[in-house]
């Protein structure tokens, strides 16, 4: 008897709850555009946020809702963007890719260390010990915190212990910007080809003992630049990217190569007057 009652009670309860679930599913069903799933499939799934949306799914919703164009996804490639545009029947749209860029060119072959740092090999730890062992107070410590934090393998340390950003892989997520204890990374549109690769705030040639590619605040770039494109602030040239900046004029007479032109094909290019760096071995540490 007990068996029959309990089976009936549990069975009845199951039936009741199941019908409640079925009713709730009918009543509260959310109609979702099936295209959202398809579009999300076509996106790169990196959830990087470079488009300005919190991830690929919200971006897919925006695409289907017509709030954004596929071109906003700078991380995908041309075919991917075209496929989404085809599928939705919209224009691809143009968006300038933004990448992380390092404002330092002081690798170990050109920049001297004033002390040997032998502790935990991270930039953050080294920066706690009197700013690290680098001769230049502003320079890259070269211990690769940015390389480790990058989720997209876009940053690699070159043989001179300087991070190199792979523009194709960079999603401008900004993790390296936060990780760098010297605040050397910033997010820049790739069209900002004129670039000041130095953060040294001191004026004069003394800094050259610490780093051969440092800016000495000679102001030649500011003088040469057309229409006040480059101005000096705190002994550093500042490029005003709101003006037309598609000119190599400012870099031509730079004596150290601190202001450079980042070419689409050939990479970093220095002006004709810049001292050529042919050394590949690391500089010795400065004597105490």
């Amino acid at each position, binding site marked *: 008897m007990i068996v029959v009652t309990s089976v009936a009670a549990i069975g009845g309860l199951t039936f009741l709850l199941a019908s409640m679930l079925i009713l709730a599913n009918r009543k509260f069903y959310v109609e979702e555009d099936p295209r959202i799933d398809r579009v999300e499939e076509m996106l790169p799934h990196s959830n990087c946020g470079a488009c300005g949306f919190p991830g690929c799914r919200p971006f897919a919703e925006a695409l289907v809702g017509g709030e954004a164009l596929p071109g906003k996804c700078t991380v995908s490639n041309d075919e991917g963007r075209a496929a989404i545009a085809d599928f939705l029947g919209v224009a691809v749209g143009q968006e300038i890719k933004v990448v992380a860029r390092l404002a330092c060119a002081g690798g170990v072959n050109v920049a001297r260390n*004033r*002390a040997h740092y*032998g502790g935990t090999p991270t930039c953050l730890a080294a920066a706690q*010990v009197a700013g690290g062992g680098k001769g230049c107070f502003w320079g890259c410590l070269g211990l690769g915190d940015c390389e480790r934090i990058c989720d997209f393998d876009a940053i690699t340390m070159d043989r001179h212990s300087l991070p190199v950003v792979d523009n194709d892989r960079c999603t401008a997520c900004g993790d390296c910007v936060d990780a760098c*204890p010297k605040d050397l990374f910033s997010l820049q549109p790739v069209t900002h080809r004129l670039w000041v690769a130095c953060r040294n705030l*001191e*004026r004069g040639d003394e800094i050259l003992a610490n780093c051969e590619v440092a800016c000495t605040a000679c102001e030649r770039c500011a003088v040469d630049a057309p229409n006040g494109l480059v101005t000096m602030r705190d002994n550093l040239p500042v490029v005003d990217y709101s003006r037309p900046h598609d000119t190599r004029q400012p870099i031509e007479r730079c004596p150290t190569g601190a202001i450079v032109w980042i070419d689409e094909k050939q990479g970093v290019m220095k002006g004709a007057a810049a001292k050529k760096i042919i050394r590949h071995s690391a500089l010795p540490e400065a004597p105490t």
Partner: protein
Amino acid sequence: MIFPRRQRRSFDHGIHPPEAKDDTRGLPIRQFPFAPVMIIPLLQHMGRPALPLVREGQEVARGQCIAEPDGFMSVAMHAPASGVIQRIGLVPTINGKMVPGIYLKPFPGSSQEVGEGAPCDLALATPENIISAIQQAGIVGLGGAAFPTHVKLKIPDDRQIDTLIINGVECEPYLTTDHRVMLEQQPDIFMGIRYLIRVTGAQRAIIGIEANKLDVAQSLRDHLPAGEPVTVEVAEVKYPQGAEKMLITALLDREVPSGGLPSDVGVVVVNVATTAEIGRLLPAGRGIQERVITIGGPGIRKKGNYRIPIGTPLRFALEYAGMADNVSRVFLGGPMMGQALPSLDIPITKGTSGFIAFTENETAADPLEYPCIHCGYCVDACPLFLNPSQLGLLAKSGRYDAMVQDYHLMDCFECGSCAYVCPAHIPLVQRFRGAKTMVRKQQAAS
């Protein structure tokens, strides 16, 4: 034998590093010569840099005010020597930052007399007068943190101060500056206490000393001015007793709340060297342009306690004191809380209580870092009852939010006890400093 804490006069946890004070504690304070070029950073304290009052090429007299405070969280700077301003620009500091500063070239033949200024008369001065006189004299905490003293003395209106503690603990190994100041500058200390009592309204003053300075305690007790509420108390030797929160616990058995100030429990703690400078400078209306430091450690030939002009480059100081050939590391401050120096072109500032040179014999190669096995030695050492082991693991994985919210990272004052006892050689304090840097960066961004 175990005593209850009130009888022992100490705090719980903490460590006992070797004191290593015997080399210099018996040596009287000697005057240090002037360097060929002085480097005076305008930010030697916590807060905002001072604003220069001089221009390049100007001649200044020793003790002349060369920079004025920029707001309340800033103090004045004074010329450490009569000379000419060579350059105003950026100067290196121990924090690894370049700050605005002044290069001063002293005149070689000058008598280097210090002029008298407008005195701050104890009999007439109101507390506000004294606070502004301390700011104008450029006085900051000389124990090492360099917190502007006048800011500390500005007690919020809703707080009542009953006790003034004069911190003469000097728990950091090797350093003996406070020891010598307490033996040689007793009238200045008692005068300074009078000023401080006037400002804070405290009913009594306690000079706190550790039991390794019994000669000082005896001498101070012999010379205590009659009729004034000043006592000398001796606490058990333990590191970090010189931290103000620990000292309050040791002497008064009061606990400063997390994130709070000593004034929350009715106490103000002032370093004894700072007190002596207040008592020495305010009646004469002068500014601080020199301080007492200990130059010690196995790598130094002429160890000693020196009254050194502020702005002396370390390279000059080390050359004068004589350096052993195989010096491998120089520490600014003591070995526990001090910083290893990356360069010798850094000036002595108001917060420098000494520097120590170690030779290759003492500094072994950096020991290998082993994983944390949760042995708990650091938990037993932390004077603030934090959990350094867990904090260290969180710092390694970059979980700074959890460190702040669940493990009270911001209460840590980086005494280094945890890293000292860690058998796995984990550089805990360095990790905490890094984590704090990142947390402050995030806070500034949001």
